[in-house]
């Protein structure tokens, strides 16, 4: 296969042999594989979690069939390659919604489970894995395990957030959430600093969906200014599924178009606009949950060199050390001048995921985009890593291409217990990277 960029951030470049899985009844000849394999969904992970350089990717996106949908109970059983967007097209008109959704609908059901994704409602609903009722796991031995919290419970726990390493999820059953309408009542509020922003999260603990955008180029008192957004599904009946028009980014942008000044201009505009539009309103669910999906392939604005995401979470700490840590990170970013277009702040709740390697933990999470400026970016990450380390925080594998093996092993102490569930034929670039050096 010619394609080089297999992940959303375009880093690292890798080459693969691709096997398409078209029918869940087909048998895969694992024995005939001459290299290790890894399931591949829609490639919406930023780093090397969906990458298996020099190996085989088993593409799952043709496994996109519904198996059963009970519109009374909201239990949906699908093949694992169906996209969340496709699920929504089927269930929203009948009054149901995903229990948890990431910021894009172009991810597969299998990918959502394998990364145990979180959404704007983590403090209310936990991760995606908390709503999985069961799944069928295909091992390279040909064995198919139906895993639930009680059947093959160990594989259930290992596969949720299992990064595609425990086998291939063929089908999965999830519990959906009832909705009365496809509209969201939103409440946007501009805040002038990090503390003010985090206080807003506290005040809105009972709001189902909360998130904040942060401007990380400001300094001093304005450090961490941003726009907080809270939302609830409307109670007014209207389930019409609106088709939204998509814009496309047809080519890679020249990389000089993204610099400190253009991002600063963008941030100023965005902040001013958010401030102007502060207050309550009603919106369709798509722009609320998936603001970036309107611009197809927006990752290309970062050009051929690609870009990184950096997402971490840190606990609040007894004396608000968590806040200080986030403040220090924003400070470092601002000082470095390495511009992040999209900085997203959220507070995670304490709902435990069944997944062994699940990322979210009660505390504050920050997610940032950085254009790839080589060493300069790496040096910034080193500084951010140090803060995360000190705070006993974590990095999110789905968005990572840089974390050190020692950090991963520290942050995910269950990694060795997990390793026992890895299928002998499966591997990934990520896994090799974070386990090859022992802590």
């Amino acid at each position, binding site marked *: 296969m*010619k394609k080089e960029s297999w992940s959303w951030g375009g880093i690292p470049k890798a080459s693969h042999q691709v096997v*398409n899985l*078209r*029918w*869940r*009844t087909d048998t895969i000849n694992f024995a005939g594989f001459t290299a290790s394999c890894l399931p591949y969904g829609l490639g919406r992970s930023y780093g090397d979690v969906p990458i298996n350089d020099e190996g085989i990717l088993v593409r799952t996106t*043709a496994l996109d*069939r*519904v*198996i*059963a*949908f009970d519109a009374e109970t909201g239990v*949906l*059983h*699908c093949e694992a390659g169906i996209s969340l967007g496709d699920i929504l*097209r*089927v269930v929203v*008109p*009948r009054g149901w919604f995903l229990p948890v959704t990431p910021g894009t609908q172009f991810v597969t059901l299998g990918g959502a489970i394998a990364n145990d994704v979180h959404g704007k409602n983590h403090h209310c609903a936990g991760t995606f894995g908390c709503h999985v009722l069961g799944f069928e796991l295909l091992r390279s031995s040909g064995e198919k395990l139906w895993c639930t919290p009680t059947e093959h419970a160990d594989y259930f726990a290992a596969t949720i957030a299992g990064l595609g390493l425990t086998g291939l999820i063929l089908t999965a059953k999830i519990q959906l959430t009832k909705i009365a309408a496809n509209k969201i009542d939103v409440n946007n509020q501009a805040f002038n600093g990090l503390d003010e922003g985090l206080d807003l999260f506290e005040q809105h603990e009972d709001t189902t969906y909360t998130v904040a955008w942060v401007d990380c180029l400001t300094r001093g008192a304005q450090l961490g200014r941003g726009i907080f957004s809270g939302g609830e599904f409307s109670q007014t009946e209207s389930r019409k599924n609106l088709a939204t028009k998509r814009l496309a980014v047809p080519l890679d942008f020249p990389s000089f178009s993204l610099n400190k000044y253009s991002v600063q201009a963008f941030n100023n505009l965005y902040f001013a606009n958010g401030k102007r539009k502060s207050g309550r309103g009603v919106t369709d669910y798509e722009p609320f949950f998936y603001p970036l999906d309107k611009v197809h392939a927006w990752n290309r604005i970062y050009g051929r060199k690609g870009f990184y995401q950096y997402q971490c979470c840190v606990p609040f700490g007894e004396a608000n050390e968590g806040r200080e840590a986030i403040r220090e990170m924003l400070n470092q970013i601002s000082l470095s001048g390495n511009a992040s277009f999209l900085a997203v702040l959220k507070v995670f709740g304490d709902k435990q995921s069944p997944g062994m390697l699940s990322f979210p933990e009660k505390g504050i999470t920050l997610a940032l985009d950085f254009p790839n400026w080589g060493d300069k970016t790496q040096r910034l990450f080193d500084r951010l890593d140090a803060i995360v380390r000190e705070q006993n925080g974590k990095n999110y594998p789905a968005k990572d291409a840089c974390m050190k093996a020692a950090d991963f092993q520290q942050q995910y102490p269950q990694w060795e217990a997990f390793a026992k569930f890895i299928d002998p034929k499966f591997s990934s670039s990520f896994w090799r990277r974070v386990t090859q050096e022992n802590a």
Partner: protein
Amino acid sequence: MNVLILGATSAIAQAVARQFLLSATTPVKFVLVGRNDDKLALIAEDLIGRSATAAHVQVQDLTQLDAMDACISRAWETLGSIDVALIAHGTLPEQREIEKSWELTEQALRENALSHMALMEALALRMEAIKRGTIAVIGSVAGDRGRQSNYIYGAAKGATAIYAQGLRNRLTKSGVHLLTIKPGFVDTPMTESIAKKGLLWASPEQVAQDIVKAVQKKRNVIYTPGFWWLIMTIVKSVPEFIFKKLSM
């Protein structure tokens, strides 16, 4: 709405069936015809999950020309009547291999032309009698002009298109609608062995949207994606004395 899909396991057919459900304003019932019982069952399940009120499976080898009338008659009985029939089966033979064998050439013509004609005829008879219905048949841009790289496939698709054109002429007075669909490159299992690059390749979903829209608007002939109309207009207008020298 009662929909019959012939060659229901093809990627385009699956996408069209789903698109009918997405755009339908009335309940949709399906009969799905194909060779593979297991795969048809998976598709039926999917369509039911996506809100179809019924999805019946009918196993049939669509190259058995003598059986086509009975096949349509059975589907007609199952549904009560048929509003839309999509003829979507087909194969992409390897030109270099089959040009050496009449047996394989004949088979390719049966799979991509004769069976389509037999099905169109059987459907036309019944729809003419009730004076309504739509027959949609999938041809190809390859049928617009013969090229050395796939003229057997092209001849079959061209034959289907001409047959459909004549039949449309006959059906007009009874109000029956016949749509000829000419897709360009579509990313499906059928084209898996071809290296896919560039902007010319479309997804089955894109093509399905065009097809369902064309059924609703009672179009006669469509190219999908639409830009193929322009490409084929140019390709067809190249004089033969030049065209024959091109390596296409």
